[in-house]
């Protein structure tokens, strides 16, 4: 229904899991949560049509969404978790850290000191570092050069797509392949990539200046609340068992739907028959 359902190739991953051709997924009957979220699961700028199911990643987000007035909700889990179901870890050797500097989204700017962050990464990470930039920052030669000059490998997973254009069905596949090369995943803010990496078998870490997002909304408590609520995922080293339990719950990996149920919930049963 909403074009954000196709971000990052999410609908493509779910179509593959449902046994449909992954290249051209049908419309999803509902709004699919497209990133880890501390609010009601929907992006703040989303147009919401009342009565449309909201398909959420975790039970915690569902409870929060209910408390915020959302009723037609259902926990389906993150597309990432379905991708991992379909592609078990081959167990290849891992090395170093994949590091995700906090980014803004389209039209937003991050204010902060990249130089200090680079020093901290160098001081903390024991092995080689791959820095993964958001596509906007990847295209910014100055930002990119700073990380390259620090001796990091610099990559970008791709463009998430928008308004049904430039969709990237392989986005998550590339991200998974990269993450499985690394022993650790880190960022200066708790974000989807940390959850993804941890579920993909990396040791998660969140440290360093979280930086400031221009016009950042504090509706759901911002960074301070995130650190209070999810302390087990913050720090240069975290306690792995606790971190993994949280990550599994936040991505709904403990409650994925059977393909038949997912087809029903997404409104794809007629397509599959």
């Amino acid at each position, binding site marked *: 229904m909403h074009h954000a359902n196709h971000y990052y190739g999410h609908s493509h991953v779910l179509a593959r899991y449902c046994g449909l051709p992954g290249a051209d997924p049908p419309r999803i009957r509902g709004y699919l949560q497209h990133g880890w979220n501390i609010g009601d699961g929907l992006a703040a700028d989303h147009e919401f049509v009342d*009565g449309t199911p909201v398909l959420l990643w975790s039970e915690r987000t569902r409870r929060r969404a209910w408390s915020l007035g959302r009723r037609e909700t259902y926990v389906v889990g993150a597309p990432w978790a379905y991708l991992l179901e379909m592609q078990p870890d081959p167990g290849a050797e891992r090395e170093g850290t994949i590091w995700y500097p906090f980014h803004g989204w389209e039209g937003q700017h991050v204010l902060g000191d990249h130089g200090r962050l680079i020093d901290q990464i160098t001081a903390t990470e024991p092995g080689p570092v791959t820095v993964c930039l958001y596509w906007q920052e990847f295209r910014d030669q100055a930002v990119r050069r700073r990380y390259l000059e620090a001796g990091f490998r610099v990559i970008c997973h791709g463009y998430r797509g928008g308004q049904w254009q430039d969709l990237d069905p392989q986005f998550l596949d590339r991200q998974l392949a990269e993450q499985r090369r690394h022993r650790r995943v880190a960022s200066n803010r708790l974000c989807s990539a940390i959850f993804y990496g941890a579920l993909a078998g990396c040791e998660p870490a969140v440290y360093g200046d979280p930086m400031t997002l221009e016009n950042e909304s504090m509706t759901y408590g911002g960074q301070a609340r995130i650190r209070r609520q999810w302390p087990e995922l913050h720090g240069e080293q975290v306690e792995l068992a606790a971190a993994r339990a949280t990550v599994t719950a936040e991505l709904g990996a403990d*409650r994925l739907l059977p393909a*038949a*149920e997912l087809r029903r919930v997404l409104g794809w049963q007629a397509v599959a028959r």
Partner: protein
Amino acid sequence: MNPRLIGGEMLLWSDLDGAHGPGPVRGDALAPLLDAVTGRTLVAGPHDPELLPGDATLLLRGLVDAERLADRFPVLCGGPGKLAAGPPWDTVVALDGLDRLGSAEDPQLPWNEAFEQLLAALRPGGTLLLGMENFLGLHRLVALPGAPSDSDWTPVAAYDETRPAGLAAVRARLHAAGLTISRTYVAFPSPVTPAVLLEADLLADRDRRGYVEAVLSGAGAPVDDVLTDPRRLAIDAVRHGMAADLAPGWIFVAHKSPAPAPSDAQPGDTRPADTRPGDNAAGDAPSGRTLEDLLLCAAIERDLPALRTLLAAWQSSPEAGVPAGQLLVTPDRRHLPLAPAGTPEAALHAFAVAVLSGGFAHPWPAPAGPADLTRTLAAMAGAELDPAAIPAQPPRPSLRDLLADRDRLTRELAQARARHDFYERTIADRDLALRQARQINALLSTTKPARALLATARWTVRRIRH
């Protein structure tokens, strides 16, 4: 002479034809109780004659009924006032209670006096089978206002101060009269047409809750319009330990002193509940919870993985067609069916109806109705149903269902309108994008290189087609 007119007989009256009141007390659930009566037996009040032992004597107030049954039973026709004049009886059966014993020819007796008259006709050591309607029973709590019937000429019963109100009060009254109660049964869903009788003690047994819930919810849909489905209320009453107090009726098996020795077989020893299909050993109700109870708990807790496990285990078992409300899950996780199996589609549909009409805050987003939810439930068990195999929804909604449907339809209409507006905006956006694309296309086709490109493309398409 049969029938024998004993005074107070009503010449143009029948309780048994059901035209002037609720008809006789009836139902197969009563058969084991009546089969077990012994000795000289008096059956007082309107009972289904098919259930009665052939050697019983009947006390009927209507001459029409008395004459109709005179070739099968000895019949006394009239009010209870003259009963004590005859020799006392070994057993007195009054499963309809005392409210329809008195004749219109006589003043309406207070309950207390009618009770004393009946008791006086029982010999010492004799057995009384007494039915009582509970005026706070679920059948009355869910009833819509009705018109009085021909038999309600003095409809005082609910306001009769001498009539014990409530289970404890009735028991106390029987004790006070020198009776020893050996068994108490609760009757659902109606005191006149009970589908099930259960021992009151069983209702208090937490381990047997599932069995009791299954029996009560299997008692059949209400026949008349109701405020809300009494079966759901009955299950809630069991949960709260109130089912005996809120039962539509009670039947007491009581003995006039001196009480018989405990070793003597007594009417009521053959437990009526044990005649239900699917029951196991006599009187030994199985423990466990109903699958419906477990499914509802998981759904309300939003424990979707547990819900999927329960649904998958059910739908992959030989009991897939047994309604969840009639399927016990024993403490060792075995399925124990208490009703015959239908189709799996019908069983899932019955649960979907229970979820949607029970007013539960269920986890499924915007189900279009029970059929839609049925397909989702099947999908949670990993199966895809043929929609044509899903039965139609049973009619007769309760008033609560009607109001819920009204609110749901109002909400759905508002949501459909919102979606309609969204689609309109989306179409307008797409139209704009299409127009722009066409304009660009038209612009390109007027330039020379673009024309050449288009000509090549057309030529290629033709080649591919041929």
